[in-house]
């Protein structure tokens, strides 16, 4: 047989052919490449969580190469002189080594910590986006539940990580965690001793937390993230209403290339921001806190931000202990076990709760603007208010100190605020939503304010409005249906003042000659509304 010459140009096609021969991939691959994704800035919030999770995996793996979760007591003799001669656990010692002796170890620790904070922040903001736009409605309830689960898993994962270095703050956090477990009725003391392998702190807790932190929880999180994103793929992303967009289509860009490219760029940006923060902003300087000692704690020590709301609820809880039949229910149970329980179950059921109230059980692929669901918006604002009061109360000693307020006053303000402010938040959120919606409807019905004031023969002043819809023979604009989407409210949105010039320091394009404003129909000119 004659040897054929290798034709380089034909090579990709040939390889592709060989691949398809084996995997029958052409059809499904094309479906994925061409899959249409809608675009909006608010759809990127979940991506930030995903990207910071990837950064956590990368930096965490680096840390795991040097960190030892050992509670064995050692005497420090390393390069950070102020702590030399101190008794500490091997875990704390290796964390110090990571910070001072491993080349680039500190930036990895700091990037890991900042990425963890960003991860949780992105989850929370993403969740707010889902809530306020109604993206949790049928058929996406499962993804809403998965999101809630991932928040709590991230919470636990972060807490476990925070405990690992065994510095003064992590030990204090762990001790409070053990007290929280102790407060569980009936089994509390058994749960605590079983987890800690005896009384706090025992000798094994860090090893257990380590395997949770670097293996089990990341594995579960990774699985849930995969399912979460898989469901977005299968169910297709929701979209905002707008021209041509219906419940039965997706308007956007094909997945590859432009959409993917933008995602890749965005990932690099998130990664870059984390790198900058990890290098430039100090976080968790464990060498300043020192190793954990049961008898030492400093005032103003704060947990990571996502734990603060539970710290706050713990601080605000009145001293109510229940004693009955010789048994005790400690006050700690309510703010740290019962409240998180409620905060898990009620949000998970929310999609069905809302459907019950609205009697709406249809499929929804179009998002709602917050203003179009005033009750939901009000409820959301109330929830955020509730959360903020708790989170601020988690730092109430710092606030009291900085602003010279009495601590007791701060506590009482928090207790009262927790009851009074959420209803106020509901009222305000609902009113603002209604007001915005009302204004949209007005503009739809009467047109855009032109800023042109006319004096009528009878001495009355009126403003001329530019209708959005064509006018009929009598000069009355057609009734436009309310579509739940942005209504132009300024004349230049209608092209009246010429397009805005694009570009940062200088125009990106040569200025086009100003367009003449659309001539108002002759009849319309004298028309007033």
């Amino acid at each position, binding site marked *: 047989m004659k040897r054929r010459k290798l034709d380089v140009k034909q090579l990709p096609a040939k390889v592709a052919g060989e691949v398809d021969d084996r995997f029958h991939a052409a059809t499904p691959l094309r479906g994925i490449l*061409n899959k249409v994704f809608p675009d909006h800035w608010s759809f990127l919030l979940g991506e930030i969580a995903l990207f910071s999770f990837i950064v956590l995996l990368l930096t965490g793996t680096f840390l795991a190469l040097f960190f030892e979760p050992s509670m064995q007591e050692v005497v420090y003799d390393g390069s950070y002189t102020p702590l030399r001669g101190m008794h500490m656990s091997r875990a704390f010692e290796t964390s110090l080594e990571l*910070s001072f002796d491993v080349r680039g170890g500190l930036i990895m620790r700091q990037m890991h910590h900042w990425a963890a904070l960003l991860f949780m922040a992105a989850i929370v903001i993403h969740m707010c986006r889902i809530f306020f736009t109604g993206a949790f409605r049928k058929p996406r309830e499962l993804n809403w539940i998965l999101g809630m689960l991932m928040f709590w898993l991230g919470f636990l994962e972060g807490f476990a990580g925070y405990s690992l270095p065994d510095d003064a703050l992590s030990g204090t956090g762990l001790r409070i965690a*053990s007290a929280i477990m102790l407060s*569980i009725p009936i089994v509390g003391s058994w749960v605590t*001793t079983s987890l800690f392998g005896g009384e706090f702190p025992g000798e094994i807790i860090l090893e257990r937390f380590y395997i949770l932190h670097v293996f089990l929880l990341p594995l579960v999180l990774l699985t849930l993230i995969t399912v979460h994103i898989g469901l977005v793929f299968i169910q297709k992303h929701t979209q905002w209403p707008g021209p041509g967009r219906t419940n039965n289509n997706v308007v956007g860009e094909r997945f590859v290339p432009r959409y993917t490219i*933008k995602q890749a760029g965005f990932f690099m940006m998130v990664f870059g921001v984390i790198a900058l923060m990890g*290098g430039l902003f100090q976080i968790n300087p464990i060498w300043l806190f020192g190793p954990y000692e*049961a008898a030492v704690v400093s005032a*103003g020590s704060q947990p990571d931000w996502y734990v603060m709301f539970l710290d706050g609820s713990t601080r605000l809880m009145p001293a109510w202990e229940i004693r009955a039949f010789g048994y*005790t229910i400690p006050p700690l149970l309510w703010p740290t076990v019962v409240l998180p329980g409620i905060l898990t179950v009620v949000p998970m059921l929310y999609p069905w709760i809302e459907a019950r109230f609205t009697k709406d059980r249809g499929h929804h692929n179009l998002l709602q603007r917050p203003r179009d669901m005033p009750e939901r918006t009000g409820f959301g604002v109330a929830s955020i208010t509730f959360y903020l009061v708790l989170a601020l109360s988690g730092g109430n000693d710092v606030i009291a100190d900085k602003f010279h307020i009495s601590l007791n006053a701060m506590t009482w303000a928090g207790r009262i605020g927790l009851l009074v402010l959420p209803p106020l938040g509901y009222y305000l959120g609902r009113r603002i939503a209604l007001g915005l919606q009302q204004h949209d409807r007005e503009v739809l019905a009467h047109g855009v304010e032109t800023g042109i004031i006319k004096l009528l023969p009878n001495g009355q002043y009126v403003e001329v409005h530019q209708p959005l819809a064509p006018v009929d023979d009598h000069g009355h604009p057609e009734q436009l249906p309310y579509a739940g989407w942005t209504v132009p409210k300024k004349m230049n949105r209608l092209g009246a003042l010429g397009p805005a010039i694009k570009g940062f320091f200088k125009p990106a394009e040569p200025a086009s000659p100003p367009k003449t404003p659309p001539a108002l129909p002759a009849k319309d000119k004298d028309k007033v509304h």
Partner: protein
Amino acid sequence: MTEKSRFEIVREGARKDGIEIVHYESQFAPGSKTENRMVRIVAFFFLLSGFAGLAFVAAYVWWPFTDFPSVDGWEYAPGNSPMKGFTPILGLTLGVTLLALGLGILTWGKKLMPHEIAIQERHVGGSSPEERKLTGNTLAFIGQEFGLSRRPLLKVALAAPAAGLGAAALAVPVGMLIKDPHHPDIFFTTGFNPVNNNGKPVRLMREDNTYIRPEDVSVGGQITAFPATADGHGASNKYADSPVLLIHLRQQDADHLRGQLQNHSQNKLQNPSDPNSGGMYGNLVAYSKICTHAGCPASLYEQQTNKLLCPCHQSQFLITENARPVFGPATRRLPMLPIGLDEEGFLYAKSDFGGVPVGPAFWEKPEA
């Protein structure tokens, strides 16, 4: 194949998946000045990213330059990463590398790739009734194939391995982990229990393992004390439940507290004529430092008000009244360690907190 016809093929392929590309347009005329500028911007970002990456590597290898170019100049001098700007320089160079790369990619995607609008149809709701019927029957038939309803014996028999395996799966992890908190009763004993000192009463000591004499604590002052256990680790986290705050009260405060001791069986005077027969010794009193709320060290002593503040959730304890909680979420007083003076003039614990468990409350914890 010309470009035009290839796009037509793409469009046709998309159509097969229910996707219509309705708008497809380059943002700038090919070869126009603006397009060329965009190309240059992208190239600039990529170059910047590359240079910053090299700078990162250079800093990683050679920083700090002070040692350069000595023989081991490329070797990192440990112990100074937060100092000498090493970490900030790494962060800055790595950050710029990634941000510039990101900006380059974004500009490429957003500006140089044609803008498009594609519409894909989506199917609302589930599968067709036909499909549901077929799959539903397939599932139902699987159940039928097992034939459990016709074979009741198997139904019963199946329960056995299910129960057995389930119990085994539960027993192993639970059995491995479980630790009885009451045998020995670890929550009710601390380092001050004489068992930790070969049966002899346990002295109080400082963190540096030195014993304490009453005059070591100045009037109005306080120190943290630990159990002087035989193993020498009394101040370590092994005895995390044991630290106490030893306070030397001023005279009138001490008198007030002495009057209050009677309110608590553990603290009260055993012999009414001997003021040292209760929890206090002279004007000295030792309270557990472990907050009864969640276990933080309640250690901020406010001399003027005689309150002890726990920094974790701001519970406040009035030390002149048996350390009862007066503010915040704590519900229980801090247990008092009954102290006395031994023959050598050192303070020691007369008993282990009188049998009251220290620290946070739990289900079985008795009224204190």
